[in-house]
């Protein structure tokens, strides 16, 4: 029983992280039809920005109110979204709308390459450590194991993010508009929707979520170049499994990948690295649309 519980808890923690990291990717695909490889870079930039801001915060006397570092982290993610969102979407991606999906992947791949080095140029190649936020929430004892409170906070953050995205899409006016654009951008435009603004908004939301993932992760790791490289393919796996463009799908995908990985780590460590891609390949083979693909209306 203990092992099962451990796997579940580990799986949930990892799934929470995966969801936050992947939901932005699937949202951007759903609205803009672009599978954004640079999503990994936005994650990494979020991590660096968070590390910088938190570092600056504590250097400026933040020890008086350490929880302020969490605000710094979220602020970092917002900054990334506000600066890079418009820059990338208005400055580059919008020239490629409506073109071949794979071509757009190549464009985002080019952006990814560029941003990888931009990060090195801005933040250098040495690792950043900002562990204080990670320690602020103490530890939680479960059975015979100790977990860091922060890890559970990530699960909570994932749930909040998930609910927020779902509620926004399904219960707000703007959300309904976004759903309409997802369904058919052209028709939406003829009905008066400012599709350009929706695209920009959706991309910024996706960038924020990517950067938030990085920001939340920064205290748990040493922030080094190449973060984005590993994260993006894991995010791919999650959104492919769940179905490109589906937010509930990203949640299910995150759970599946999270639990598989946790199970593998505890039961079959040799499989840890490949289990994710194995599941991704299996899903692609048997259900290429994923488990909950974006609904496509029949065009004729």
């Amino acid at each position, binding site marked *: 029983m203990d092992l099962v519980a451990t796997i579940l808890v580990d799986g949930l923690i990892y799934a929470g992280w995966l969801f936050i990291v992947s939901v932005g990717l699937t949202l951007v695909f759903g609205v803009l039809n672009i599978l954004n490889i640079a999503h990994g870079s936005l994650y990494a930039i979020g991590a660096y920005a968070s590390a910088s801001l938190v570092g600056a915060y504590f250097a400026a006397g933040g020890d008086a109110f350490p929880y302020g570092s969490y605000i710094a982290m979220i602020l970092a993610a917002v900054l990334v979204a506000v600066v890079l969102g418009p820059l990338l979407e208005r400055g580059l991606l919008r020239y490629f709308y409506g073109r071949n999906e794979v071509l757009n992947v190549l464009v985002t791949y080019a952006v990814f390459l560029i941003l990888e080095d931009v990060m090195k140029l801005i933040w250098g190649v040495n690792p950043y450590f900002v562990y204080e936020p990670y320690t602020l929430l103490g530890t939680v004892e479960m059975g015979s194991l100790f977990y860091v409170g922060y890890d559970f906070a990530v699960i909570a953050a994932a749930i909040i993010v998930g609910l927020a995205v779902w509620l926004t899409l399904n219960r707000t006016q703007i959300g309904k508009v976004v759903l309409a654009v997802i369904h058919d951008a052209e028709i939406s435009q003829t009905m008066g929707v400012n599709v350009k603004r929706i695209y920009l908004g959706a991309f910024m939301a996706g960038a924020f979520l990517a950067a938030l993932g990085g920001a939340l992760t920064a205290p748990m790791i040493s922030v080094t170049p190449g973060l984005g490289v590993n994260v993006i393919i894991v995010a791919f796996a999650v959104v492919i499994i769940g179905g490109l463009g589906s937010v509930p799908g990203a949640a299910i995908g995150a759970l599946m990948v999270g639990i598989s990985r946790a199970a593998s780590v505890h039961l079959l460590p040799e499989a840890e*690295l490949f289990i994710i*891609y194995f599941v991704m390949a299996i899903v692609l083979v048997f259900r290429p649309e994923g488990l909950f693909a974006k609904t496509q209306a029949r065009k004729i």
Partner: protein
Amino acid sequence: MMRFSVFTYAAVGFVVLAAGAIVLPDWAMFLFAMALAKGLVCLGIVGMMRGGVVSFGQGLYYCLGAYTATLAANFLGVSDIFLLTLLSAAVCLVVGLVFGPLLSSYRGIFFAMLSLALSMVLYGSLSKMSFIGGTDGLNIGAPTFLGWAPEGRPLQTALYLYVVTIVVISGALMRVYFDSEQGLITLATRDNELRVEYLGASVRNVMAYNYVFGALLGGIGGTIAVLALGHVDPEFAFWTTSGEFVFVAILAGYLSVPAVFVAAIILELVRSFSNLYFPNTWQLALGIFLLIVIVALPGGLGSLVSRRKGQDT
């Protein structure tokens, strides 16, 4: 009459490249050998691009070929380069025949993602197989050439001439294939699969052929690369490795075979140059390059010499 041309080009290409054995300093010969080996993998991607799909997972075969050669050399004592190449090609052929029919039903993003997933499965598996080096990988000794065991500069030269020969032969064969009836059907498939099916051909077969050729070329490229480097590790199958192959294929376009190898050489030169002088900018250079190609030269370098327009995807 036209066939004569392909062989003429091939002969000229061989002479030009082979001259490098005399002219190039050691570091350049190594760089060219690596570039040509990788160019073989990219040639496979180009073959598939002619059918309308982009593979983000050729690292699978690049890695598989390299590991097959290394394992054969280290555990079976095979050192002959021709034998190693043949073995790798055979293994990659078998694997390609297994995955080819599967992948031939996929297009666009799903083809890209599935090919990527398969290569990452290999990456993940090899990383954990500590009995064959895990993430550290394996070293491979110098190859022999039908009994001859050169060392130093002669070894380098022999390896270089070997890859030049393979490249010229593969390039010529692929050119013949591209100009053939099946080659034209491949181009038609990229444009209008429905029409090709209605004309009576099997689109799945077309895609499968191109995939298998890609597997073979990938495996051979990987074999030569590991022999030039002396080392292989799971990174050969990592997605960024595959990404570089795609970059070269896009830069080259699908209209000209020599363009593929020119593009591969350009990549290696940019990598070396930038590593030497501007260490943190080579990916930046690649990214900008790629954007420029996509926007300004969608048919790749090959479109500069071919009358056809061609689009990269």
